[in-house]
């Protein structure tokens, strides 16, 4: 028991997660794989239902990213295979349709999350991390980065030991940045991550800027370093050399 917990903690710290990507479009699959490898995940790719079926039955992955539309079968059937052989495996469904019935069906069948194409890699990454953390039931729920310490259970952030008073959105935004270190997050991606379907507001982008500004101010006021850098005025990057 102790060994498992130790291994799990090790996995979280060292990002030893193995993720299976089931997506028939090779280009998209490669893009996802590239992004996730960059995030220190261990990744395998399959492009057909039958290959996916085989891999799921034979190997133990932490998570499968499942596209619903496969050339030789549907992702829903694959989800049932997962739940039968690997009930502990986390599943994120990728789909091109907004259809509510698929979403409900998928979540009822035990999928952990559901992403509609087109999605941002940063968002996929953030969701993967959230799910893995929840699934692994670890007692290590702190992320330390620079002068910041994020408590995931309490949803609080300390800067140099001082508790920051962040709004829920500011907290979510900071976490989104920290989960996607050194990556450009466009304003659109941030807005979509934070406000979901409400995001396509015509003028939500100076709004994102306002939130960033507040977040920066709160961090620098507590003596922290501003690591949120604007890129070409199109998005922001959380810069760190960790």
């Amino acid at each position: 028991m102790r060994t498992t917990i130790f291994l799990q903690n090790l996995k979280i710290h060292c990002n030893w997660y193995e993720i299976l990507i089931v997506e028939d479009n090779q280009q998209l699959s490669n893009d996802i794989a590239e992004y996730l490898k960059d995030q220190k995940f261990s990744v395998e790719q399959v492009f057909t239902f039958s290959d996916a079926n085989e891999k799921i039955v034979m190997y133990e992955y932490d998570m499968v990213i499942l596209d619903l539309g496969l050339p030789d079968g549907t992702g829903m059937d694959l989800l049932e295979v997962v739940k039968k052989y690997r009930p502990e495996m986390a599943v994120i469904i990728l789909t091109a349709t907004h259809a509510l019935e698929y979403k409900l069906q998928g979540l009822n069948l035990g999928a952990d999350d559901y992403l509609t194409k087109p999605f941002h890699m940063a968002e996929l990454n953030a969701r993967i991390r959230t799910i893995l953390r929840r699934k692994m039931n670890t007692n290590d729920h702190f992320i330390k980065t620079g002068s910041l310490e994020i408590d995931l259970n309490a949803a609080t952030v300390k800067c140099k030991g001082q508790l920051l008073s962040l709004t829920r959105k500011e907290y979510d935004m900071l976490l989104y940045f920290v989960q996607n270190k050194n990556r450009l997050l466009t304003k659109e991606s941030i807005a979509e991550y934070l406000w979901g379907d409400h995001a396509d507001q015509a003028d939500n982008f100076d709004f994102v800027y306002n939130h960033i500004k507040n977040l920066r101010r709160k961090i620098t006021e507590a003596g922290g370093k501003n690591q949120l850098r604007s890129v070409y005025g199109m998005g922001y990057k959380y810069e760190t050399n960790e």
Partner: protein
Amino acid sequence: MRKRKYSILTKVGIFYLLFTLLSFLVTAIILHSEATKHMDNILEERLKQREHWVKILIERRPERVNKKDYATVKPVATIPKAFKPVYKDTVLLHHETGRKEVHRKRINYVTVKDQHYRIEVIKSATELYRFKDDVYEIILPVFIVLALVIILINYLLSGYLFAPFKYILRQMASFNLTRKQAFRQRTTSTTEFYHLQQLFEAMQKRIVNDYEQLKSYTENMSHELQTPLTIMQNKAEHLLSDETLSQQQAEKIKIIYDEVMQLSRLGSLLNLITKIGNEEFTDVKKVYTKPILEQHIQSISDFAANRYIEIKTTLSADHAFKIDTGLLDILIRNLLKNAVSYANSDSVIYIETTSSAFTISNEGPELEFDAATIFNRFTKGKNSKSLGLGLAIVKQICQISKLKISYQRTNGRHVFSIEEKTFD
């Protein structure tokens, strides 16, 4: 004005009755004239006979001539030139029955033994008139009985004969693409209904087939489009991360990125419109709007606050729509989004529900287009970054959910109200 509708059997019945009435009338007229001719002939014969008897009497027993009550004989000096016998009807007391009856009179001039006479003979014509009356008395009741029988048969048959027709109508009315129940044939020996049924079944199959094709087309379209869009979007994002780009290059990539996102939104919204139009949202039940409204207002309050827009609500817990839950969600989201997007900064959005009505209003500049087109697709102001589909979706959701949405401009505010359609 709507024209009154009659069942086909009633119409046929009325035409049949009119035709019968006409033929009865013609028959009656012909019968009547034939009978008159016949009776006239008989009377003429009788009167001639009587005249003949009178002539014989004048010859042989002149003293008894005027004792006959059916004849009046008067000797005259001359006979009017070219005289023809004259017939006249008069009312007289009948010598046997003592009642006043119609009699026919024949006036003629004869010459017996070089003496001219004016002879007037009469004969009762009652029978003739009675016979004429009888023609109508028989025909009228027969016509009335026939009419009643036609109406009764009409009434009874419409149930029996038209049962298959009504069955087909019910099948047509209950036909729903999304439920996909097969057409159940009903045996009928009426050719027209049989053909109608065949035709409807074939049509239904064709519609279902077309619908399936359209549906799979939109689904494929959506799927096949979204995957490349995801790739394009992520490639653009990836390129933007490259900090060796010049500002100009970055801006161009940003334009590609924006357009890709716009395209993907467009695709999924058009897909949504198709799905709504195809009535794929069928989980219709009574949904209370208050909790859903509150949840959406909460989600959008950040955006509103950013532009100093206040959302004031008066929500009734009783207000409900009979609608698919998913559709109500889209409906409310779009209306709120619309209100926040087009509200003036530092203004108030009012949302009010009563037990029967829903109103949302925002203060905003005049429309740049005709208010009547506000719910049309791609209608938007010149500087709007939106696709112009939000209100079109709202309208479509209202239409298929039997809700009535209206737009008004009052006191510088854009007011949208929704109420349940009432059918009279």
